[in-house]
Structures are given as C-alpha cells and as structure tokens.
C-alpha cells in the first residue's frame, strides 16, 4: 500500500486562505476541464472573495483572484463549477503527473500555484445577470 502511494503522483488543489479573514470563496470562472493537460502558467480558476459577512459595511469588500498553475499536470477530477461556493480547505481539483495514473491514492502535496488579484470581467459567473 505504501509503495503504491509513492508511485502515484497526485496533486490536490484546495481553496486556501488568500486573505487571512476569509472563510469561503466563490468560483467565478473555471478554465480547465477533466482529463485535459495543464501547462505551467495555465489559468485554472477565477475566484471571488466576499468578506461582507465578517466585515459588515455599506461598501462590500469583494475581491477577485486568479489561480494559475506553476507546474504541469493532468487535471483528473474537477469538483467545482462556476457559481459554486466553497469553504477554505475544500477540494477544487485533483491532478496527476501522467494521464493514466490511478487517482484513488492520497495526493503527495498541493499543486503549486500563483494567486493574483484581478479585475472583475464580463466572463465571470457573477456578470451573467448584468
């Protein structure tokens, strides 16, 4: 069993605390699909962080972030879609090093990503009703 885990190179992508005060986020855009390759620098998700609940005020503190891959892989499981609310720590996706790898094992580590603050844009889920 141990040997099998070492042979499997799975990476997980969870919602991390981008802002120390956040507890959740919303998926605005999803740029990847299951069983497709992810290259270094590929866009993965756009996320919305809304701190209105914790920082009640008339001007809602809403920020948008883009998560970009800093390493390559194959996206094996996509667990969210645009419009989904996710808690910090929730699993967003599982990636493997090679395409036919068994994905039942435990991920060896989080996928390396870059997170950057972005402007709201028309392709976002929250822009659909405007």
């Amino acid at each position: 069993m141990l040997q099998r885990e070492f042979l499997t190179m799975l990476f997980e992508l969870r919602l991390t605390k981008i802002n120390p005060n956040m507890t959740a986020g919303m998926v605005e855009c999803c740029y990847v699909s299951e069983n497709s390759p992810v290259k270094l620098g590929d866009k993965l998700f756009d996320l919305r962080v809304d701190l209105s609940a914790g920082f009640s005020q008339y001007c809602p503190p809403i920020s948008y972030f883009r998560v970009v891959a800093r390493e390559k892989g194959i996206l094996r499981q996509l667990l969210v879609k645009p419009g989904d609310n996710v808690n910090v720590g929730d699993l967003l996706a599982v990636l493997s090093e090679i395409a036919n790898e068994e994905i039942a094992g435990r991920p060896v580590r989080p996928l390396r990503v870059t997170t950057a603050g972005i402007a709201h844009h028309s392709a976002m889920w929250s822009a659909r009703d405007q």
Partner: protein
Amino acid sequence: MTHEIALKLGSLKADDFLIRRSAIHWLCEDDHLCRAGEVVGFCSVTIEPSPNQRNAGLPMAGEQDFQVAIAPRTAGRLRIEKGKSPGGYLGIHGLHLWNPNQIIGRLEIPDDSRGQALEQDVRLLMLAGRRMSGLADVDAGILPGWHNRSRAWWGDEGPDRTLLCLGICDAAGIVRGNQTPFIEAFESTAEPAHLVYIPDHPVVPCAPVLLDQLLRSSGQNRAIAADLAAALGSDRTGTTSDDWLFAGALLSWLERSPIRDSYELVTPMGLRRIGPADAVLLSLSSETNTILKHKRLGYSLQMLRHRQASAGPAIRAWLGSAFEAVKRSVDDIRRDYRRLIDAIGQETGARVFILNRMSTSGYEDIVSYAPFDAPMSDTLENIAAKEMNLMLHDLAQECDATIIDVDALAAEIGGAEHLPDGIHHSATLQALLRSAMFTAWTPQARKSGSVR
C-alpha cells in the same frame, strides 16, 4: 490632589436668530477620563427667528439636521452636570436657549496643573446634514439618517476654508470617518476647518460624471428627469418602490453640482457665509475603465454594483437599454481629469486633491508575469493601479492637482495589515491619510505634487 475646571458651553451665534438646543447626549459615562479635544457629548440645535424678525429667512434652511458636539480643551476626569431636560422625545429637540455660560460639566485635573483657569469654554464641533428626503428623519445619534450632503466645521472664529469630499469609500473614511461622523477629523486638528461630504449613493463621482454635473444646464436636467420618468412610467415589468426611491436619489445627485455650493456657518463669532469649496478631494478608485453613457442625452453615469443592486427592476432595465458601456483607457481618464480640473479652476478656483490607489493587495504571490496576457493592466489589479498612479503623477506635473499618496503611505506601514478586508483602509492608515490631506490643504502647500 486635584482641582476642577468648570466646562461652559461657550458662545454660538447666528446673528439675531435665536439658537435652541436639546439636552446634551453624553457619549461617555460620568467619571470618564477624557483626552484633550475628545468629543464627549452632543446636542441637536434649532435656529428660530427672534420676535422682531418673523419674516426673515432662516439660515441653513435646507439642512434639516443641525447638531453641536462638545469637547473639553484639556485632559481630565469628566464630572457630568445633571441637566434639566425632561428627557424622552423632548430630550432630542431644542428646548433650551443656547446659554454660553451654561456649565455642563466639570473637569478634574491634577493639582500640578494649577496654573489653569477655573473655567473654560468647550470646543464646539458643528454638524449639519441635508436629508435626501424630508422623510429620511432619524432622531437618535450623531447625524443619523440619509443625507445627500453632510458637513462639519469648527474653530473659535469660524473656518475660512472648505474642503469638499467627492470620493468613494477611501475618501469617506478620511473626511467623514468610520466611527462617528467627522469626529476623527475634528479630533485630529485644532486648526479651523469646514469639511463637506457628498455620499456616493447612488452615483460614483468619477471625473466625467462630475464634469457633466458641473456644466449641465437646468434644461438638460429637466430632459434627464423627463427621460427617467418616461422610462419608469412605460415599464411593463412593474415599477417598484425601490425604483422610485432610486430614481429620486439619482435625480437629486445629478441635478446639483456641490462644487458650486456655498454654505452658511453658525459659529462662536456669528453667522458666516463661505464657499464654494477651495479644495476638492477625489478618489482615483472612482475612475473605472468602463462608464455608462446615455445613448440619446449623452451624459455620463457610473454606479457601484452594490448600488445598482439596490435599484428595482425598472431602473435596472433602463440602465441596460438607455445607456451604453464606454471603455476608457488610462489616457482617456487622464483627459477626463484634466477637463474636470480645468473646469473647476475656471468655475471656482478650487484646488484638487486626488487619493491615488494602493497598488498591492498583500495577498498575492506572483513569481512570474508570464502567465498573464498583455496588456496586463486589463487583468491584474496591481498593474492597473500602478499605471493609474503613474498617470496621476504625470497629471500633477501639468495642472493644479495634488496627489495624496495612499500607495506610499500604505507601503511604509505594511500594506496588507492595513487592508484587513482586501479593500478598505484601517483606522491607522486613515489617520495618516487624514494628516496628509490637512497638510496638503494648508495655504502654504499650494504646490502641485504628492503628499505623504
């Protein structure tokens, strides 16, 4: 050992008009150890004609809320004098004639301060609010309710200068404050000042919107009102009360340029009239890269998305059909600023201060810009903010604009810590920016450039 200073209300005059005040509403308990200049209470004030001037127009007639807050000039332990108000509803209205010799409390100070006088007039902070509607009256608290303009002034001889805030939340926190209206600004400076705050509901005060508002004729205002009324009247989806309320607030905002406003001030020395504002504070954060333009009437409009969300379906449909979204490049924004600053210069001669943008959120970990498409300022907030800040720097070189350098001040104190929600400034950063604003506003500082 201690000795006491009697705290008197001190002088407040409005020429021959009578000034009445409510009971004093204390903001602290008896025995409170207060700082010098700390606001400890307030009362509501009314002005009424004296018997020989029944037909005279009342000063500040358009401002339904007028209050005076009080602050001891010296630090000490406050002993509150028991008032004579019957309390209840009568406690919030002007029952008592303003008596400058009225002792409202006493201050216990250490004996080693014995050189001090046995009595002192408290510092007065005057606060006035013009309600969005006469219906928007709320009795309790300091400047409560919905105002389309609120202002504050102080100074024993009355201020001779006015700063008009036309920014969004970043500027509002500096001028109006986030704790209690205007008190943070009042407590931060002993210099006389008059601050005026225009809220951003429902319109974002960006440069093209302010320019249109400043130059629009009354005929153009009537055309805007008629167009809006026709849109709401013809709406078949059902115009709601939210639509009508929103429409009223929108017209109230569009019809009157506060840049031209003049003001009446009730001061310890008497009634004064000043204005228009000699300084106007703007926010670079108001300048979005897309604004709305009315397809037929041609005027500009911009609203924050959470404001639009408070409109009803008819207003949202009207915004979607009567307006087009117009993209603005950084150069376009610079030209819009230039036109506005020149127009303000011609109309009133006021100086323009602009809060620049914080160009990092502190919550990023960009190790390479390669994954982001050019032009990166279309996507990345930090690049967009840096480009806009550079544009502002160029603008300040070519015209009478002064930058209040949010970006530099935030960086000096550690940016992320002072943007706890990723958007809004901490009280520490606000205090630094307020200090920079007052520094820029001094007559000696009349020089373009940036202030930190």
